[in-house]
């Protein structure tokens, strides 16, 4: 008998280890469940990204979590900049400031550290 081809399976599940707990990740490496988030999750992701978090990072991380709770949307960069400008003024609400904090893309990385889904690619 021919060896049968294995059935298609769902992609392998990845986990993030945080304080002895294994938290589910999505296929982009983002936290699968928003409720699993804690500051330790942000720290674990920051380590992956080689980022040393300071108060300015934390301000952005908390802000994107609030954004998500208000708008049910993971903020893309334009919306993030505009919303931060409204709350903190133009010093903080500008894309250069945010890029200095998160060189690999503020919306992409801040949402990851904040435990949100990855923002839609085309927005």
């Amino acid at each position: 008998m021919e060896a049968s081809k294995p059935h298609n399976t769902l992609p392998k599940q990845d986990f993030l280890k945080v304080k002895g707990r294994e938290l589910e990740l999505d296929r982009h490496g983002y936290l699968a469940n928003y409720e699993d988030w804690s500051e330790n999750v942000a720290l674990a992701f920051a380590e992956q990204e080689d980022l040393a978090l300071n108060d300015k990072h934390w301000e952005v991380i908390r802000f994107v979590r609030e954004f998500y709770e208000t708008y049910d949307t993971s903020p893309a960069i334009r919306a993030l900049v505009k919303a931060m400008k409204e709350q903190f003024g133009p010093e903080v609400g500008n894309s250069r400031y945010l890029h200095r904090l998160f060189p690999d893309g503020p919306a992409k990385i801040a949402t990851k550290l904040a435990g949100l889904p990855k923002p839609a690619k085309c927005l």
Partner: protein
Amino acid sequence: MQRFAIFVTKSPYDSRNAESALRFCEAAITAGHRIEQVFFYQSGVHNSSTFLDLNTDEINMCKRWSEFKLANDVPLNLCVTAAARRGIVAEDQKSKPDSNLAAAFTPVGMSEYFSALNENAKNEKDAASTIKSIQF
């Protein structure tokens, strides 16, 4: 000569929508007009699937669009997010080694469609260069 941008939103087979879009494109070109691009959104992304499997006496839209592109060199763009959500994937993503996206189609962001229309908006006075967007 009129310039057109075509926006396709329905999957093949379920509806005649995409067939109408293609026939419109062919008729427009025959009549001397220009199709700037065809953009696939919503269920329209299914038009790009190489997994479409139809009998030879039925219409395979993926094949038809691919032939259309070859003959007329019209870009066939599809919204990458709409495609991913419906299981249409390009193979360059390492978590998805197989691709069912036909080579004639290019996965792009939404803005690809709108930047053409926007360029158009700036030249509104010049009627000949105006692009008409048609949704199918």
